[in-house]
């Protein structure tokens, strides 16, 4: 589970627990947990841990699938490795869960409210499904709707976080104004984080 395991505390502002940026934060936190808590593992613990953490979220279904069509000794080796990886993944998950519990238990009331909104807010599935179907003209499966609403929420989060950065940089206070949002969108577009198929941006003239 990619539950936020890291807390980024801004100076003075009561920011909620944010999603760790990419896999970097996950890497360092899980690494330290792995090094301190799992010294009983055999050889290659750190390399395995990095690989495990980096692949934790993206290879959920890939472990154990690579044993088809190999020599028996290699098959045995691969059978042992996925179990080790699963154990480590569970341990890392448990660590994350514990840390999250400690963190949430120390929230102030306002932080709790914000965190609850952060977790619970979601796009209505019916509206998203209607929107996608109006674009494709054919029906879409439920998984597509789930994936699309999830991605859209992450997208909103990226824009709002960037806009808050802009707002702070310009020395102003929330609530966010349209100019902050537009500047945030402009920055994200420069980083290619906003899909755009309307016109090509020429990099070098």
């Amino acid at each position, binding site marked *: 589970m*990619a539950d936020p395991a890291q807390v980024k505390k801004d100076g003075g502002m009561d920011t909620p627990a944010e999603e760790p940026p990419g896999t970097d934060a996950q890497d360092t936190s899980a690494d330290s947990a792995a090094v301190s808590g799992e010294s009983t593992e055999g050889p290659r613990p750190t390399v395995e841990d990095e690989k495990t953490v980096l692949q934790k*979220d993206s290879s959920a279904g890939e472990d154990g699938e690579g044993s088809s069509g190999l020599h028996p000794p290699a098959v045995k080796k691969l059978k042992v490795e996925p179990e080790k990886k699963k154990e480590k993944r569970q341990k890392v998950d448990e660590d994350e869960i514990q840390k999250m519990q400690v963190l949430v238990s120390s929230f102030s009331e306002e932080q709790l409210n914000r965190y609850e909104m952060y977790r619970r807010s979601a796009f209505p599935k019916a509206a998203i499904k209607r929107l996608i179907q109006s674009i494709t003209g054919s029906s879409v499966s439920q998984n597509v709707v*789930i994936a699309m609403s999830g*991605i859209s*929420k992450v*997208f909103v989060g990226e*824009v709002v976080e960037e806009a808050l950065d802009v707002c702070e940089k310009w020395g102003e206070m929330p609530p966010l104004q349209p100019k902050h949002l537009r500047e945030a969108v402009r920055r994200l577009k420069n980083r290619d984080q906003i899909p755009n198929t309307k016109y090509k941006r020429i990099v070098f003239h």
Partner: protein
Amino acid sequence: MAEEDDDTGFDEDVEDGGLGADGGHGRRKRLFSKELRCMMYGFGDDQNPYTESVDILEDLVIEFITEMTHKAMSIGRQGRVQVEDIVFLIRKDPRKFARVKDLLTMNEELKRARKAFDEANYGS
């Protein structure tokens, strides 16, 4: 063909106009106003965000979904949107990729749990 998010005053002015042949984003009924407000608060904005900001974000989200849908239609099986296409399009963005994987895995687990629960009920 002006970009919705780059026009400085266009969005707000046109919205007040109301009637027009253009069935663009500004004219549609607001789909996500309530949910977007909660979301903005959750992500760090004020408890009462400005309505204009919520409108801009809604247009952004609709544009984002539209772009992703069009891209997904053009890869894999043409003319259809499938989960594999979305995952493929997202592969470069670590946050979104991890989120989609988590959501789909959780959904599978929930389905399995529900099925097991129903079977247990049916048996007893």
